[in-house]
């Protein structure tokens, strides 16, 4: 990769353009090996009640030693709940970064746009670096950018579905409409999905299930790393235009013909 293609997000800079979730791996060892193989520098965590019978959390301590944590508001249905969770996360993890998730229902896990905008506005006012998980809707994304979010994180397809980029045109429009980073969050199924998202102009990818539920998660983490890097390079390199007819690559002169 060319030097200094840094990913700037909020007040931080990253070399990796891959953000990973920490759930649903076969076991903690495979999770850590996958996170390491992916090259990620930022991983998401949820905020949950502390169980009094749990004196320490070995797995979380292990993650915390090697990666920056991005808390999320998963499981929140209203702006109010999400703001409360964000405040708890800020206190627990000493970060004002928050992946804002406000969900409409359990079947689709699609964002509730009204509550999302409300929550984002309030969290920005409270000084958070807000990274909202949102629909692949350009207008919602523009509004989130106007509010002052640090990035927009449109979904490619439903969470955990692995269905790939359902609407590449919208992702391109979003890329055109906002100047803040665009992070594709949810729906990535395999490395080519990640590469395509990057080619469409995404700044980074956030994913979890595509790696954690792969047959060989560490190998897939490595594949995703390459997919993201390949897509990013292709985007920067500028692809050729598509043509209907062939364009000869070898010279037309000097071809030896049979008499």
């Amino acid at each position, binding site marked *: 990769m060319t030097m200094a293609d840094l990913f700037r997000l909020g007040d931080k800079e990253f070399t990796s353009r891959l953000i990973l979730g920490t759930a649903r791996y076969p076991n903690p*060892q495979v999770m*850590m090996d996958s996170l390491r193989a992916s090259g990620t520098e930022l991983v998401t965590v949820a905020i949950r009640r502390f*169980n009094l019978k*749990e004196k320490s*959390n070995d*797995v979380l301590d292990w993650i915390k030693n090697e990666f920056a944590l991005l808390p999320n508001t998963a499981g929140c249905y209203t702006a109010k709940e999400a703001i409360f969770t964000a405040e708890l996360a800020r206190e627990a993890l000493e970060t004002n970064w928050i992946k804002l998730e406000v969900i409409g229902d359990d079947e689709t896990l699609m964002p509730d746009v009204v509550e999302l905008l409300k929550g984002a506005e309030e969290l920005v006012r409270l000084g958070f670096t807000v990274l909202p998980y949102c629909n692949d809707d350009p207008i919602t994304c523009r509004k989130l950018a106007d509010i002052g979010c640090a990035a927009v994180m449109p979904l490619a397809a439903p969470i955990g579905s692995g269905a790939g980029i359902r609407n590449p045109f919208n992702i391109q429009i979003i890329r055109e409409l906002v100047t803040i980073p665009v992070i594709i969050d949810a729906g990535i199924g395999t490395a080519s999905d990640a590469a395509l998202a990057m080619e469409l102009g995404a700044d980074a990818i956030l994913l979890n299930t595509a790696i954690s539920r792969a*047959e*060989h998660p560490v190998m897939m983490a490595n594949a995703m790393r390459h997919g993201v890097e390949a897509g990013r390079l292709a985007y920067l390199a500028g692809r050729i235009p598509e043509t209907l007819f062939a364009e000869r690559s070898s010279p037309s002169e000097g071809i030896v013909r049979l008499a």
Partner: protein
Amino acid sequence: MNAIIPTPEPTERTAPLADRNWSGRHVIIGGGIIGLSIGWQLARRGHAVTIIEKGAVGQGASWVAAGMLAPYAEIGFEEVEFFRMCRESLDLYPRLLEELTADVAGSFEVPMLDSCGTLLVAMTADDEAYLKRFHDFQLRIGLRSTKLSSAEAREQEPLLSPRTKSALFLEADKQINNRTLVLALAQAFTKLGGELLEHTTIDVQNVESTAAAVILAAGAHANAASSDVRESNPIRPVKGQIIMLRSTEHFQLRHMIRSPRGYILHKDDGRVAVGATAEEKGFDTSSTAGAVFDMLRNAYEILPMTYELEITELCAGLRPATRSHLPEIGYSAHGNVYNAIGHYRHGILLAPYTAYHIADLVEKHPHASHVLHKVQPSLHKK
């Protein structure tokens, strides 16, 4: 354990064991299925053995477990090597039961191996995709896995919901009544002269200098009994909730039933075990509404007749898990200390393997020196 609300654990008694001279006895820390089966095996080979159990013998995860001996249904994509260990253990079960039957000599019930197989069912299109991927994997590594249509599955298991889309039949999986098994092991152990100290805790450090061998088999509580384990291969508890229903004469299952969301087993004593969750909740063992709801809903969707069954128990156990979820069975860093820890979901299944291998190691059998103590995660090469 008849009450729906589990009885609270009795408070531990700190026995004055720290100063005891074990003068050549083998000391096993932990009286669950693993500690009991090792203790019994050593006792029947003529050794002086003491088992020290922090609660009541066999009443932890070994009691709450469903007693599935189902390596074929449970194999993970990167667990082919581990699967071989599981299958070896399953193959050792007849020998264990035969020896155990001889030892209790009719004075106590020894459970039978139930060769019922697993029916892995798909209830939705997403389940079918899951089953296909699993079936392909099993065929690729040479395991027997039979695909059944909805009609075939329901012919094999008449109580299955008509909404069953398809199923995989894994005929080599078996089950056992783990409760009668642990009781029979404890019975045989004491009958063979073994010493059983319940409601007692002790640290490996307090016994290793005078005991002939110390075997750590403390399940989810292994960290508390050994600083070595705590630092080198920590064990954490993974909570598993389970529901026990009572079968009726109309509710009979021929196989173990599983879906991607859980299982339903018919045990030989009339219990119907519906499980199980996997939760990171520390040492909490409460039963919760959401988990019970999810498990019953899953059972109802697969086997609608479960709707009518009486609930007899709600309980939760703590699976002992290493970071790799693979067990550590064998030598520790200290000469006379052996680890038999981290059996996670496979304690009942791996009891024979663990018992015979640890007993061979302790007796320094020539072939036993080749037994590696940790199964390493391995990539399956296609």
